[in-house]
């Protein structure tokens, strides 16, 4: 079951205007750099992007904001991006903000065939407006729906040709959940290996969730907040 494709451009074949994409990553950590670059080259427009953040001005999903390819962002936190702010305030960009845990769970639910679930997050706030609320054991909850995407763009550390994936440190974040919920899940890896090289017991994402995988290149892995301490 070889799912390897040559590169990001091939991997994104079939992406069209107005599609819904999930894009992995938390901040700039664990984002699919190669696939985002390919989206810019491809020039598809009117995209709805489900991604925890919207990148920074000149990196991550910020690149797709510069080119105005994104119609709508569904995120939990978008505050690192001046172009984002400009487009949002001017009404060019639609934004739906949802709690981070709800975002993660909605991706998992979509991938897991769970159409809806209840969470306490956002009850009593504007996030719950228009949503069904309900009491369980004396506490109020909001009903949230599973998310699906036409394409899920995922970044992994290692992956085998069958699509089994391993993530590294906090670059994992939303990636395994979005991998579950894409109709077509495209994965770029830092290291592409043969089946059997990854320990079956410690694979994070089973290949069944992955449709296309490719060896990524030229990872910048930009750090947003370089915080250090002095050796003493």
């Amino acid at each position: 079951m070889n799912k390897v494709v040559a590169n990001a451009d091939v991997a994104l074949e079939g992406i069209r205007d107005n599609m819904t994409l999930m894009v992995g990553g938390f901040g700039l950590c664990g984002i699919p750099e190669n696939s985002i670059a390919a989206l810019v080259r491809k020039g598809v427009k009117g995209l709805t992007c489900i991604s925890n953040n919207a990148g920074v001005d000149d990196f991550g999903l910020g690149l797709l904001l510069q080119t105005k390819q994104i119609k709508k962002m569904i995120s939990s936190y978008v505050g690192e991006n001046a172009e984002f702010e400009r487009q949002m305030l001017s009404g060019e960009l639609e934004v739906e903000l949802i709690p981070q845990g709800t975002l993660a769970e909605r991706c998992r639910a979509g991938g897991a065939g769970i159409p809806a679930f209840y969470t306490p997050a956002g009850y009593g706030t504007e996030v719950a407006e228009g949503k069904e609320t309900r009491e369980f054991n004396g506490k109020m909850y909001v009903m949230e729906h599973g998310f699906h995407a036409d394409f899920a763009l995922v970044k992994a550390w290692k992956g085998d040709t069958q699509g089994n994936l391993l993530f590294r440190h906090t670059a994992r974040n939303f990636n395994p959940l979005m991998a579950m919920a894409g109709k077509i899940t495209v994965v770029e890896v830092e290291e592409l290996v043969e089946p059997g090289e990854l320990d079956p017991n410690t694979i994070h994402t089973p290949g069944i969730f992955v449709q296309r995988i490719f060896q990524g290149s030229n990872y910048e892995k930009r750090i947003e907040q370089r915080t250090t301490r002095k050796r003493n």
Partner: protein
Amino acid sequence: MALNKEQMAQRIARELRDGWYVNLGIGIPTLVANYIPEGMNVELQSENGILGMGPFPFEGEEDADLINAGKQTVTLKPGAVIFDSANSFAMIRGKHVQLTVLGAMEVADNGDIANWKIPGKMVKGMGGAMDLVASADNIIVCMMHTNKAGESKLLKKCSLPLTGVGCVKKIVSDLGVFDVTPDGFKLIERAPGVTVEEIRSKTEGRLVVEGEVPEMAV
């Protein structure tokens, strides 16, 4: 004298208990990590997927794949674990995290909190704050008692869009420590040299003062 940020973090650290898993929000709450008492086992949860978060890395050892919820480079302690965002919020929503400390723009005397949105200004988003406040049994808010205009942030009713309802249990401000009770903000400690009168004048919400309120040791 009102507490400075470090003193607020120090005071909050006194709320920690051995064996707790704790989520510290961005800003002053992050500083609490520096004051975990020697010998006390407290593990820090970062909602982007770390349990057992360590201090910042030494210069030159930053790892782009290892950041905290504030996008700062961090390290892992021995015994640390990495997990995905769904599992992270499973921990939070499932009440496995014993204490959440976070900042706020406003808190109401019924425990409502607002800390994510100022209408008309740029909206950055709630991140994990709504999940945290809706889920945790034990939420401490850490904030300045008044805003830059000198207006109280401890209110009868929040004026800003809410992050969560009736969830805050305790507030550590630069002026004192307050339990959120059915009768309102109950003053339990004053910052050194800060009078009950000053606190009363800067607290818009219902304030409960019973007997002598001790000054905190700093």
